[in-house]
């Protein structure tokens, strides 16, 4: 496959996955911000997605102060925010357009329709369309696209690069979300809010819901969510589709079947990561410090992304 084509397929699915993840993040923060906040206005909850995606400063630079509605709009629909959900969907659609000949009609029509619709939503404004409705809509569009992909495209390298983009993005997202929630809990923990509190329950269950893992959690642990089991579920369980382990598993499998010898550096990296997760217990991770461990892994994922780039996507 053409390196440029592989690159467009990879980024198409990365951007789409990113848009979906951002909608999930937004949904959770928005609902948490509505909760009784012991006298607070929920602004820090709404700022959280901006913080995680590193766009809070950009926002403050443009709008001066935290303002719920403006932050939500900036994050979701602002065309001048290069990492808004709107922009991500636009980038995904532009990549799809560039490889129109390599994806199926169903896939193209799906992503093109999503793009046309979000432009309509942007015109209406988030307030009129409805915040939760918007997040649901986006998740649904992403599910549809994935369904169209699984259901219609040949199981060839195009399919593999699409999946590769999805799982790299998803792994990164799971790590960041877990890290951010854990940070928030640690700060609170200083205020001596213990793990058993209702507040803690909402925090962890919100994270699980954002990663569509709430049902999986209750089935596995049959207990109220808490730091240790949540981290274990999201990092180490291979049977939870948005867990880190599930992502590296997929990436490892995909890279091992891509043709050619260009990819060896990337293959070696992911095999190492896979082994690291396979033979690590959650207590080892917590002992090392969850925040440090997560950040080291975020860096590893970034390096893996770079290795995939030089190996496949920009072959001289």
């Amino acid at each position, binding site marked *: *496959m*053409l390196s*440029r084509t*592989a690159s467009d397929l990879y980024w198409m699915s990365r951007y789409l996955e990113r848009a979906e993840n951002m909608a999930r993040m937004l949904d959770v923060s928005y609902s948490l911000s509505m909760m009784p906040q012991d006298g607070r206005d929920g602004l820090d909850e709404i700022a959280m997605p901006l913080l995680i995606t590193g766009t809070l400063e950009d926002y403050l630079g443009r709008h001066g102060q935290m303002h719920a509605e403006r932050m939500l709009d900036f994050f979701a629909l602002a065309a001048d925010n290069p990492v808004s959900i709107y922009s991500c969907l636009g980038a995904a659609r532009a990549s799809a357009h560039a490889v129109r000949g*390599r994806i199926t009609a169903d896939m*193209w029509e799906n992503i093109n329709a999503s793009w046309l619709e979000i432009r309509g939503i942007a015109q209406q404004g988030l307030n009129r369309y409805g915040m939760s409705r918007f997040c649901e809509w986006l998740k649904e569009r992403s599910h549809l696209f994935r369904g169209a992909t699984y259901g219609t495209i040949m199981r060839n390298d195009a399919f593999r*690069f699409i999946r590769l983009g999805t799982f790299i993005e998803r792994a990164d997202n799971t790590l960041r979300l877990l890290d951010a929630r854990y940070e928030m809990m640690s700060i609170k923990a200083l205020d001596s809010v213990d793990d058993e509190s209702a507040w803690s329950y909402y925090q962890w269950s919100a994270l699980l819901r954002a990663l569509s893992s709430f049902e999986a959690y209750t089935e596995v642990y049959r207990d109220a969510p808490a730091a240790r089991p949540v981290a274990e579920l999201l990092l180490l369980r291979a049977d939870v589709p948005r867990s880190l382990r599930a992502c590296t598993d997929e990436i490892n499998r995909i890279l091992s079947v891509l043709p050619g010898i*260009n990819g060896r550096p990337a293959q070696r990296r992911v095999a190492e990561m896979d082994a690291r997760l396979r033979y690590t217990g959650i207590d080892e991770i917590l002992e090392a410090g969850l925040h440090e461990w997560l950040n080291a892994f975020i860096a590893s994922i970034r390096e893996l992304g770079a290795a995939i780039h030089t190996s496949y*996507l920009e*072959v001289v």
Partner: protein
Amino acid sequence: MSQIFFDEMYDPNGQVRPHYREFARWLAETPEETLAQRRREADLLFHRAGITFTLYGDEQGTERLIPFDIIPRSIPASEWWVVEKGCIQRVKALNLFLADLYHDQRIIKAGVIPADQVLANEQYQLAMQGLDLHRGIYSHISGVDLVRDGDGTFYVLEDNLRTPSGVSYMLEDRKMMMRLFPELFSAQRVLPIDHYPNLLLDTLKSSSPLDNPSVVVMTPGRFNSAYFEHAFLAREMGVELVEGADMFVRDDKVFMRTTDGPQPVDVIYRRLDDAFLDPLAFNPDSMLGVPGLLSAYRAGNVVLANAIGTGVADDKSVYPFVTDMIRFYLDEEPILKNVPTWQCRKPEELSHVLAHLPELVVKETQGSGGYGMLVGPAATREEIDTFRARLKAKPHAYIAQPTLSLSTCPTFVESGIAPRHIDLRPFVLSGRETRVVPGGLTRVALREGSLVVNSSQGGGTKDTWVVED
């Protein structure tokens, strides 16, 4: 107005022509709301499928739909076979002409075409001189633009031998009609066209001496007005869609950059102009081409379809000689007529043109897409005066033709159904044999009275049926 136009559906007495009877019956029976709803559906489907084009000169690169009209243009098979034979004859002669022009130049020596007419032409490529092409084919994919005059006679308006476009609309229009109105296709036999991509791939493969050559479609990129078509054809043929930057030349051979390392390229169906192919040989500013491509081509290591330098044969100043070419190379009488043409470079013809500007259509010899032309009967006095000055300044850059009364076909417009002018572009494929799929692309001028069918000037398209008698 009395019937000065040939209408495809109705005869001069207002009676439905036999090959339209089935359709007319269906149209009368189908409730108006159904039609309106299907038309909306068609719009939505085209939009969703991204079947769009980008206007040149539109800075935002806005994508637009080419309006699609659900009333088909229908041709009886018996009539079509003549048109088909005529197109094949014409393209064969044009290919023989190009081979001759870049080798022995017999046609010049025989005095059929003046040497300066072709050799001093900007489209004549020195790089092609003496170069032998597999099967001697230069224009593998040709589009012949046809119109019908008042009495129904077909005329060739121009030949397109560089990178003719529009075939994707021909295919998509048919798909759309079959999706919206399947009942129409069971009522009568409309000859199929959907094998075109197979024929195209076969043509491209047969352009190379290799047994199983690696074929690619080369596009200037996604901002090109015909990008949709490039992607469409690559996909339908199952070959790579490449841009210049995806390829490179190493030791006179062309390769593409893939995830599995460099892979050889043997046949390039290129959809960009000669001038952009190789920045080291042609336009040095071209970012769209492949440095070194010309050397690989001249070394015989890659096939370009169409070949470089075909523009000299479809230049409007060479057009008047095509009927003579048919006689010269094939020793046959032309099946399809040329539109009478005045060559403004000839002083006596120029003075005729200047005296009759309000009745004539004047075109630039190098122009395309309906730009830079004067339609005398539709022009204002000032427009005519401006054009007169341009003609006098650069007479060799123009030709003139009588204003043809293009045939009309009933078309959905805002006020209901009304006749609109149409043309026809069949696509001719030249490989082991010369072939045409039945019909072609019908373009329709949607503005009342307009004779300009180009999509960039507000034209639409119709499905084109060849109906068995």
